[in-house]
């Protein structure tokens, strides 16, 4: 056994760890480390705005404050739940319907689909600005036509009205993300086997029965995937709403991410802000763990 062969043997066995270490190192240094640091900060009174609050240990004070003394946090949590459940269900319904339409009635799907994808590929900041322009209270294009049709009062602006603003930003989210649902469902529909459908048609099943008894059960993994991915993403929403309303008017559209941003980077209340950021993370982590189990493990495959 010569020496170079022995050397390459070591390298050979080392390929696994050697290839993994840089990736892990980056994540540990940039995510895990800072995250642990933040958990540490959450037990202090660190604040850049108040004198004397330079990181003294306060135990669970910030956690107690979140649970007992901060109705605004829980209000933003509630707003976020309304936002998530609203947009996900509408996007799911519209996106699924659109995928079925494309699947059954359109031949040159790829071209149509590419045009349809444009809303979700644009920078969310640009999406926010586009709609801010469309919905402007004085010269917004959509505002103008809604007023012409008598659907909107002459003094009402969709983004300035306390009751209308949340549904409005939700509709913008529906506009942006319905294409995603369509894209994934169309891929799912195209991957289904043909035999069950042919057999059902032979047996004289009506279209609605085919859809209910064959299409939906076969698509169940895709349905779970879409609901959970959109659910998690909607829960994290920040950019678009931040640009459109900044969380306002008042706190009408202050989603949990925007609230956490405000505590940290407007009030500079970093000790308490760490707790808020931690709570957002916790909710998403739970959703994520559920989705991973639902999608990957029950399927019995890691990556297909």
């Amino acid at each position: 056994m010569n020496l170079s062969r022995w050397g390459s043997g070591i390298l050979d066995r080392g390929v696994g760890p050697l290839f993994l270490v840089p990736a892990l190192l980056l994540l540990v240094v940039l995510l895990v480390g800072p995250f642990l640091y933040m958990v540490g900060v959450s037990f202090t009174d660190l604040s850049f705005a108040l004198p004397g609050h330079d990181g003294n240990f306060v135990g669970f004070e910030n956690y107690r404050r979140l649970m007992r003394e901060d109705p605004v946090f829980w209000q933003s949590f509630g707003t976020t739940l309304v936002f998530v459940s609203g947009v996900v269900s509408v996007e799911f319904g519209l996106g699924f319907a659109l995928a079925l339409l494309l699947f059954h009635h359109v031949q040159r799907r790829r071209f149509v689909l590419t045009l349809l994808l444009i809303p979700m590929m644009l920078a969310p900041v640009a999406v926010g600005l586009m709609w801010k322009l469309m919905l402007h209270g004085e010269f917004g294009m959509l505002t103008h036509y809604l007023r012409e049709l008598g659907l909107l009062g002459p003094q009402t602006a969709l983004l300035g009205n306390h009751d209308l603003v949340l549904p409005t930003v939700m509709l913008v989210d529906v506009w942006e993300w319905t294409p995603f649902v369509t894209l994934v469902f169309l891929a799912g529909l195209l991957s289904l086997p043909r035999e069950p459908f042919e057999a059902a048609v032979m047996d004289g099943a009506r279209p609605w029965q085919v859809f209910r008894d064959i299409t939906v059960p076969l698509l169940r993994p895709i349905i779970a995937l879409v609901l959970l991915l959109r659910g998690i993403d909607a829960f994290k929403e920040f950019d678009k709403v931040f640009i459109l309303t900044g969380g306002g008017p008042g706190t009408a559209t202050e989603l949990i991410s925007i609230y956490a941003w405000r505590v940290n980077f407007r009030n500079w209340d970093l000790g308490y802000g760490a707790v808020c950021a931690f709570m957002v993370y916790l909710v998403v982590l739970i959703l994520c763990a559920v989705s991973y189990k639902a999608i990957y493990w029950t399927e019995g495959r890691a990556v297909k």
Partner: protein
Amino acid sequence: MVALATLVVVLVIALTPYLWLLMTSFKTRLDALADAPVWLFTPTLEHYPMVFLDKGYLPMVGNSLIVAGVSTALSLAIGVPAAYVFARHDFAGKEDLFFFFLTTRMAPPISVVVPMFLFFGYVGLIDTRTSVILAHSTFNLSLVVWMMRGFFADIPREIDEAAQMDGHTRAGMFLRVLLPLAAPGMAATAVLCFILSWNEFLYALILVAFESRTLTVGIPGLVTPHGTLWGQVAAVAVVATLPIIVFTFLVQRHLVRGLTFGAVKG
């Protein structure tokens, strides 16, 4: 017929806001602020040079390019080998480690950026492009690992065996045999990474303030409570989005896989 009509309506709804933005970027101030929406107008080119040259938005385009380019390159350089290991090697706790990569991509940006802000402040990297590049690499790295694991898994194992018969070492096989076969997938992954980084807002908003601002962070600065120059806003927004639309056409085939973390192949 009903299907076709529905489709036309859907496309009009999907595309009109962007067309309106495009039109606004070529409208004079008078046309942009008219009481009734103006659909036909004499286009003006004044906004583009005004905002990019006179107002200094051109360097932000450069910053966005550098941040997106370097973070894509970095993520590929360390993510592709890791993806190869996940696709071809077995070791204890492999799926748990893979799940860890998944959680990093799923983590809400606000919960990541708060600790990163504290960390980069501590090491003195606040308001540098480096901080944004590193921040974007965290989510791009995970994307690379998932997508490339799938692309490596698509390569038949017989190819590995043949390469080993030919006397390639494992490292050599990875570099000279598998990597070229996975190149198309890698190109698609790179484009997706670039898009994600180019479009990203929150990390960049928190981590940079002045010279290192990226385009997405710069645009909102043009929106003021009084007298926003919408023509200029639209011009910057168009420059920030048009390249992405072109890229979308390029990677459309791989979008499903990229956006569902490999769960749906598309």
